[in-house]
Structures are given as C-alpha cells and as structure tokens.
C-alpha cells in the first residue's frame, strides 16, 4: 500500500497519489481503490494523512464564510451582491435590519447602493439556489474606507496562516487593520499610504510564493527590511 507522492510535491490532475488505507483530504477522487488528484495542487503527506491543496480556483461559497462583496443590483426586497464567485449573493432586507421594517425600493438604495462594498457572511448555500448573505452580525456591514485588493481565493488560507498567525503578524508589524474575505478580496485599512503599499506588496508576495515552504519567516524578513529601508 504505497504512497506515490512526496511531501510538498506539485501534482497535476490525474496523478496517482496512493493506494490502500489512507486518510486523503482536499482535491482528490478514488477510482479502482486508488487515490488520484483531481486538481493542480500541492500535496502534504503526514503519516497516513494526505492532503491536496489547490493552487488556483474560484471561490465556492460555504456557510459561515466572511466575504467581501460588491452590490451590483438593488431589488424590491433584496440586494444582489457580487462575491467574486460563479454564484451571486443575495442580501435580503430582513438580514440588514433586526426589527421588522417596511420600506420602499427607493429607500433600499439609500441604505446600500450599487457599487457599495460590504463585509458580509454567507448564511445559506446549497448549490440549487444562490447563496444568502447577512450583515446583521458585529463587524459586518458597509465598507467606508480602505483599499481593496484581490488574490486567488485558494491562497486565502495562507494569508491568514495557521490559526491566524500570518495575518496577526502583518497587523502587528505594520500597525494596520486588514479584513480578509474568504472569496479572495482583502481590505487594507490605514491612513499611511506607504504602509498601504507595503501591505499590498506583502500580500501579493504571499499569493505568489504560497507553495514554497518557509513562508512566514520570508514574509517577516520582507516586511522588516522594507520598514527599515523606509
């Protein structure tokens, strides 16, 4: 019952991963009791655990995800929100106000208009209908300041780091606020344009080099050297 891949190897779709009793996660499928990769990804092998992490891909909504969306349409009782995904998000009026309210369409666009950015959370999604969003919880709602950048959604876990280590380090080193949406949109909030530029450069660096080991140390050195250099 061999494993055919090594740790941190890049695999292509159709590549044989292992045969036999293994705990395989991520982008894989089984065929004739063998495990194959179904995506272009990076494998992590740890004992009996094999994980295939995608290198690229679209964001597929999942309940509980915090995402950054852009209002693209105002309807009678809802907003249509682009969440950088093949599926558009729907924000109902009931998910904006906690009390029952009756409002007309014109006042709906006064609350959120086309082009507005919102930090929102997915509360329901089952593929057959578009994902439902909410902004009723704390820290959710309309974005009033900051700079938005986009990265490949599959790299978001690396920007966040293990238990939020990477994003915490960035926030501490740069003394700025960063909101990361699971859909690959990242909001950088600071008044200092130099720090903003550095934050963008750093996140782009993480996106580009996410598959190379030693990422956290490399990013720390990068930020520190840039900070010193002014």
């Amino acid at each position, binding site marked *: 019952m061999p494993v055919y891949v090594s740790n941190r190897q890049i695999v292509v779709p159709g590549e044989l991963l292992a045969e036999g009793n293994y705990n395989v996660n991520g982008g894989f*499928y089984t065929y004739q009791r063998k495990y194959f990769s*179904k995506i272009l990804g990076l494998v992590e092998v740890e004992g009996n655990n094999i994980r295939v992490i995608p290198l690229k891909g679209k964001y597929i909504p999942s309940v509980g995800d915090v995402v950054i969306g852009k209002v693209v349409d105002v309807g009678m009782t809802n907003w249509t929100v682009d969440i950088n995904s093949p599926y558009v998000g729907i924000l109902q009026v009931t998910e904006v106000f906690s009390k029952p309210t009756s409002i007309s369409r014109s006042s709906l666009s006064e609350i959120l208009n086309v082009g507005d950015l919102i930090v929102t959370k997915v509360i329901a999604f089952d593929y*057959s209908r578009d994902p439902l969003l909410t902004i009723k919880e704390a820290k959710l709602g309309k974005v009033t300041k900051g700079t938005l950048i986009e990265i490949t959604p599959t790299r978001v876990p690396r920007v966040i780091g293990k238990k939020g280590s990477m994003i915490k380090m960035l926030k501490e080193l740069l003394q700025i606020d960063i909101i990361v949406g699971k859909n690959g949109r990242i909001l950088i909030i600071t008044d200092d344009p130099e720090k903003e530029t550095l934050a963008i450069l750093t996140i782009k660096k993480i996106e580009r080099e996410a598959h190379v080991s030693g990422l956290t140390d*490399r990013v720390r050195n990068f930020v520190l050297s840039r900070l010193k250099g002014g």
Partner: protein
Amino acid sequence: MIPSKLIDEKGLRVDGRKPEDMRSYKIEVGILKNADGSAYIELGNTKVIVAVYGPREAHPKHIALPDRGVVRCRYSMASFSVAERKSPSPSRREIELSKVIREALEPAIFLEEFPRTVIDVYAEVLEADGGTRTASITAASVALADAGIPLRDLVAAIAVGKVENTLVVDLNGIEDQYGEGDMPVAMMPKLGYITLLQADGSFTPEEFERGLAMARQAIYRLYEGQKKALRRKYLEIAKEVSEGG
C-alpha cells in the same frame, strides 16, 4: 508546392520524419493574464492559444443546468493562420470542431461540482499546419487544469493517418491534404480512456489497431510535456525564492 512523393525511397516523410515520429512540440502555461487559465502549444508549425474562463455565472441564464456545469467551446482559426486568407466568420468546419473539442474534454471535467455555471474554452489557431484539433484539445486540458478546474485526468490528443499506404503519426498540413486517411485520437492517458476517435479515409481493422497503438505512444509523450508545463510555473517561483534568499 505539391511534393511528387509524400514518402521517399528511404521511407522518410516530406519533413524528414520517420512514420512513427511526431513533430517536436512546446507547451506553455498561464500566458494570458486576464483568463482564469491559459495555454499555448506549438506542434511543428501548428500554433494554438487556448483560454479558459470559469466556472462562471451562466449567461444567458437559460443555458444553465440545475445539476451540473456546462462547457462552451469555441474553436476558431485566425484569418492569417492559413496561406489563403480565411474569412473570420465561423465556418461550418469550425462550428463542428468546437463541438468535437468540447465533447473530447467534457468526460474529464467534474462538471457536477459546479451546477448552474459555465466553463468557457476558447481555442484560437494562430497558424495551421495539420493537427489543429488535436493541438487544441491538448492545450485546452492544460488550460483547464491551470484554471484550477477539477479534472479526472489531462486529455492529450494526436492524429494518425495513412500516407502512400503507410501509417504515420501526427500528420502535417500536406500529408493531411494529400494523404489517404486521417484519424485523430484523444485520450485520458493515465486512465486509458479514449474521449475522441474520428477517422476519414479507409483503414483496415489491422491498420486501425496499429494506428491506435502508434497514437497512444505519441499521446504518452505529449502527456509528459503537459505535466511538465503545468509544474514549471510553480517550480520556477520556488527556485527564484531559494536563490533570492
């Protein structure tokens, strides 16, 4: 110029290849910034760019399916891709090839993971010298993988044909035009499935078997190139990082 003989006394073809040789090829990945996935292939003089977009929202909405995604494919030849200017409007042949390429790719894609969405595949032939449909399929599967779309396997394709009663692999433009038969084959090499098999001209059952075996050999070679091309981009970054410190 039409050569008087497609195979000379030494048994070599018009471009000096042996019957079982395929042309040299080159595959590049991620050449287009705006596409979700892209690939470029050169197979001898044949040059094709493939761009993949999606999965994305289906427009017009009525083409979406509730249980799986839809693949749309457009094969088109640039007006400068052939010696005599080709009209840029989609010809009957291009419309048919679009369908053929789509059907060669569909079995490899996990479409059921993306209901109500569309995956768009655009294959643009920059220069045509035989084997454009097989080159398009080979590049398209690489572009799909580059877009992060889940696939059962990559799809590689090559044509075998009959020229002066000899079976030859990977027909070029002249052999395609004046030869006696042409049989494009597309396969998922790892799984051993054939996703496209066409033939025009006449083949005896024995020739068909032998032709398929020859095609399979060439497909395995292309498959290695596909895998290498997909990994190259990421390995280059890794190398750059380790050198740059």
